[in-house]
């Protein structure tokens, strides 16, 4: 197909050159013939190269189209009336292709409504307006004295024809200037990598639009500048094809970076800074690499810190690398690289294995960080607990005992001097002693409930349910004793959860369930209260989760606002 296009291009070029060299219109001749040839062929040639290199990008076909549309304009130099008329009817079509090329570069797509509107206007000007004009135009009066007959002429109307022509030109000038503005504003908004990749095309395009405006203006005023603007325009126009080709070749060169990357990983092996290698390969110093951690369903940096992917409105975009259908990493990079999807994908493919390795490292880091945090929390919780016990002892039992000692000291003194007065003092001391014993009992119960040791979890939970600050529906089915630490963890979980329910949930009843299921103890505490409990409000839940996780279990909390709270712990006990 491409060979056919190439052949057609050769023939069309030769024909155009032959027509140009035989032209009866001034400013044509041998130089015009050579220029015609070079221009057309360079567009078709560049277009074919681009088409082959980037089949998904429309710009290749567009450039081929421009080349043929350019050759078509030389039909206007023919002496045959029909060929002349067709050539004249198509004389501005190549400019539409050109406008599309510059505005859609490098992605091949128009991005904004304004851009689409501008191209729409250009199409209307180059086709509908042109053809309507031909219906009223006598070629010898309006176009040139030696031109062939206009076969499309329907009704001769010189005034209308002249007005349409000038109107078309003015609209063309305005459109050119507007496109110039669009290009300048695009340059100003472009990121550094994007500027780097589009600069040659953008600037040549802008210059061409400026030259086009000047050239048409020259025509409107009966060519005060002579043929010069047309020549400048032709030269700039020719250089666009070369600029596009240069950028495309540059992007092709970037593909060799992929090969470099593979070599790099092979050479450096383990411990390669993947992020740095990817930055080099993609030429984006701001690139960041995140690894997918399935457990926490987030991307993290290589040091284990979480990282967020940019949203649809951000200036940066992300490319997710997958392996066997599951994400392994995400590149967060400049939006300009989006136009080079192929490159990013090949780089990711090349880095795939290394990325997977690094991901495992990052996952390990993240898990380690969580483990350390939970250990620190456990230690802190233990420390807090000890401090609480010390305070309870100091403020309670110890004070009672000191007070008893004082009473006895007083009694001793009274016995010597006034034995009758000693009796009430001794009685007070005995009452104090009773209180001290009671306090000591409840304190040791809090440290480790005796019933848990003596009768096991089922009995302890049963008692817990009876003592709780709200009504508790018990659903306990535990036949055998479980390991001590499992029983203790389950007991304190239930105790804390019921205390929370009584204090915060505003529910009147709670459900406490415990059963063993295939080597796993499941404990559920549920209330129909206000919900909204989470690790964020108070460390109680976090501490309970740590305790359960330390035994290899899992604590899940479901507490939607207004929807009650369900705590479910699963602890292996087999």
């Amino acid at each position, binding site marked *: 197909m491409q060979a056919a296009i190439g052949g057609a291009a050769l023939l069309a070029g030769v024909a155009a050159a032959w027509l140009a060299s035989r032209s009866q219109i001034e400013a044509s001749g041998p130089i015009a013939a050579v220029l015609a040839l070079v221009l057309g062929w360079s567009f078709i040639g560049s277009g074919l190269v681009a088409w082959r290199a980037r089949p998904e990008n429309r710009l290749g076909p567009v450039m081929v189209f421009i080349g043929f549309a350019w050759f078509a304009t030389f039909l206007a130099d023919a002496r045959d009336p029909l060929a002349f008329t067709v050539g004249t009817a198509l004389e501005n079509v190549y400019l539409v292709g050109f406008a599309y090329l510059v505005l859609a570069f490098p992605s091949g797509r128009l991005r904004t409504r304004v851009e689409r509107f501008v191209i729409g206007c250009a199409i209307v000007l180059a086709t509908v307006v042109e053809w309507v004009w031909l219906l009223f135009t006598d070629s010898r009066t309006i176009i040139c004295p030696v031109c062939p007959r206009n076969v499309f002429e329907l009704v001769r109307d010189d005034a209308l024809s002249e007005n349409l022509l000038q109107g078309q030109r003015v609209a063309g000038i305005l459109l050119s200037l507007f496109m110039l503005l669009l290009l300048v504003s695009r340059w100003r908004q472009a990121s550094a990598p994007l500027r780097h990749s589009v600069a040659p095309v953008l600037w040549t395009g802008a210059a061409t639009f400026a030259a086009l405006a000047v050239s048409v203006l020259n025509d409107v005023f009966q060519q005060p500048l002579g043929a010069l603007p047309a020549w400048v325009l032709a030269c700039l126009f020719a250089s666009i094809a070369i600029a596009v080709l240069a950028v495309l070749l540059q992007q092709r060169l970037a593909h060799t970076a992929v090969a470099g990357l593979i070599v790099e990983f092979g050479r450096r092996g383990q411990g390669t800074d993947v992020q740095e290698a990817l930055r080099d390969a993609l030429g984006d110093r701001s690139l960041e690499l995140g690894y997918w951690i399935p457990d926490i369903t987030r991307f993290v940096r290589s040091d284990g810190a979480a990282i967020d992917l940019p949203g649809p409105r951000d200036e940066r975009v992300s490319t997710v690398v997958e392996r066997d259908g599951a994400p392994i990493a995400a590149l967060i990079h400049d939006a300009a690289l989006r136009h080079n999807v192929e490159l990013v994908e090949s780089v990711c493919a090349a880095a795939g294995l290394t990325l997977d390795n690094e991901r495992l490292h990052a996952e390990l880091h993240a898990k380690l960080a969580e483990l350390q945090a939970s250990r620190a929390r456990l230690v802190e919780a233990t420390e807090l607990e000890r401090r609480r016990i010390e*305070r309870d002892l*100091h*403020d309670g039992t110890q*004070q009672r005992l*000191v*007070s008893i000692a004082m009473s*006895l*000291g*007083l009694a001793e*003194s009274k016995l010597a001097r006034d034995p009758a007065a000693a009796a009430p003092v001794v009685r007070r001391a005995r009452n104090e002693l009773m209180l001290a014993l009671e306090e000591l009992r409840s304190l040791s119960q809090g440290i480790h409930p005796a019933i848990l040791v003596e009768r096991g979890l089922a009995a302890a939970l049963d008692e817990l349910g009876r003592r709780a600050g709200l009504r508790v529906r018990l659903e306990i089915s535990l036949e055998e004793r479980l390991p001590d630490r499992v029983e203790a963890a389950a007991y304190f979980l239930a105790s804390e959860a019921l205390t929370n329910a009584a204090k915060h949930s505003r529910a009147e009843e709670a459900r406490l369930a415990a059963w063993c299921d295939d080597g796993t103890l499941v404990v559920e505490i549920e209330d129909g209260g206000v919900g909204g409990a989470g690790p964020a409000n108070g460390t109680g839940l976090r501490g309970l989760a740590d305790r359960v996780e330390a035994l290899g279990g899992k604590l899940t909390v479901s507490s939607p606002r207004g929807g009650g709270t369900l705590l479910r712990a699963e602890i292996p006990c087999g």
Partner: protein
Amino acid sequence: MRVVVADDAVILREGLMRLLEEAGFEVAGLAADADELYALVERVHPQVAIVDIRMPPTHTDEGLRAAKVIRSRWPETGILVLSQYVRPSYALELLSEGTEGIGYLLKDRVSDLEELSTAVRRIGAGGSVLDPSVVAQLVGRRRAADDPLAELSGRELEVLALMAEGRSNKAIAERLFITEHTVEKRVKSIFATLRLPQSADDHRRVLAVIAYLNSQ
């Protein structure tokens, strides 16, 4: 003798009040924290303030800090700090303010009315009191083999400990059933063995002994 009591636990400060009154002291007021105590001392100018070491707001060493404040603002008021734990470091911190009219006792001691009233009277008279268990901890610390303390006889160690508790020669003599003269001889020998400068002043020698015990 006029005293005031500061303790955040009602049960203890009232118990103490009854005991002190039984022992013949005039309890001029009770305070629940350091600020109340300052106001009380300012108002009644007691001879001795008995202060619990742990009081609001932090429940750590408010009593100790209160003692320092009283020492600097009302130097004529003696201070007895009560604590539920034996902490030599607290005792030394307290004594570093000067040993005149300063005492540090374990709370348990208050059950012995005799001991309590002796201690309060001694502090009121400008003496010092250090709880025997603090002294025992200081004396009982592990020491280097060449420590001169090892050269002291058992009797001398007893005298050293009683000295450290802040007792006078007379009190030591009564306690050990020996003559005051014997005590003087033992004290001289102890100071020579430990290479401490002799001091006739009871207060200074307490400090010297404590500093020695703490430094080795």
